[in-house]
């Protein structure tokens, strides 16, 4: 394999990411950060793969959700369809389940990531303002999952059944605490209540923003829901799950 400017040997990649060569080998084997192998068995990494890994997931998702014109995001973090999201969620769940450090968190964390991500598709189907789909990225080493969409947001969805909602804060509070569906008469509307209940009852932190409102439940005590104003507006929904 010819070494190009974009291909970096494992020793340099380890220095770049601040981890050991052994850790990178383990990540390659587990699929967490796949490398390329030369015919002689040496591992190399694409420079952009390393840069993407090192980028702060949340900032990437926030920029994607907030920008007037959507910037490019890594293909690995973008699910254009619900089927693709489903496949990636399955992969994440099984990676968590196989790792002794995360296996205990896998059932609930997967369930709440599934509810948030599937909501993006269920509530924006046929109605995406510009870019369809979902940012779905995770770093199981840092125990963080980030999801974002450029959909219509929670207030616009709920206004179909609650026309008197005054603002994003009220809409987000209703979504997190009441059984109400933006797709009435279908029996829906328990997804974000489930997210709230699970986060409050377990060592899971949630920050879920829609418009200028943000709902937070800390990972540690006190396990209460707070809904407040965010410092910037986003287009659809942006969520961070910490476990």
């Amino acid at each position, binding site marked *: 394999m010819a070494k190009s400017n974009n291909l970096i040997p494992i020793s340099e990649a380890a220095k770049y990411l601040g981890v050991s060569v052994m850790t990178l080998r383990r990540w390659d084997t587990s699929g967490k950060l796949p490398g390329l192998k030369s015919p002689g068995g040496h591992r190399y990494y694409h420079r952009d793969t390393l840069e993407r890994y090192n980028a702060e997931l949340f900032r990437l998702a926030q920029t994607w959700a907030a920008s007037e014109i959507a910037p490019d995001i890594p293909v690995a973090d973008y699910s254009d369809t*619900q089927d693709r999201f*489903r496949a990636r*969620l*399955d992969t994440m*769940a*099984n990676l968590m*389940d196989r790792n002794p450090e995360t296996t205990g968190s*896998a*059932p*609930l964390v*997967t*369930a*709440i990531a*599934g*509810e948030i991500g*599937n909501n993006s*598709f*269920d509530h924006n189907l046929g109605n995406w303002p510009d870019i369809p789909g979902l940012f779905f990225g995770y770093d199981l080493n840092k125990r963080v999952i980030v999801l974002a969409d450029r959909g219509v947001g929670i207030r616009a969805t709920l206004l179909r059944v609650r026309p008197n909602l005054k603002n994003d804060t009220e809409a987000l509070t209703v979504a997190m605490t009441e*059984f109400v569906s933006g797709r009435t008469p279908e*029996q*829906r*509307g*328990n*997804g974000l*209540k*489930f997210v709230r*209940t*699970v986060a409050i*009852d*377990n060592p899971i932190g949630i920050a879920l923003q829609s418009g200028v409102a943000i709902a937070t439940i800390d990972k540690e005590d006190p396990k209460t829901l707070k809904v407040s104003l965010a410092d910037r507006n986003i287009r659809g929904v942006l969520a961070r799950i910490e476990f």
Partner: protein
Amino acid sequence: MKIELKKFGDVLTSRPAGREAFAAIRPTLDPTVSEVQVDFSGVLSLSPSWADEFFRGLDGLYGNRVVFLPSDNPSVKATIAILHAQ
């Protein structure tokens, strides 16, 4: 009669997948049986969206003849709890 949910996958979270699962099993269901047991063993993660679609179908056929077998999986417990609270 027992329904093993693991036959539909180990991560059961989306509404479309819940609908597909019920549509797939519907032709095999006998509406005259006295009890239908739902077995969660082998399921890694269950969420209310999938469960709502699948169990609403079962409820329409069997009503209170549906029995959930015990499960230690926390996502199964939390999902059943919120469906009952609704």
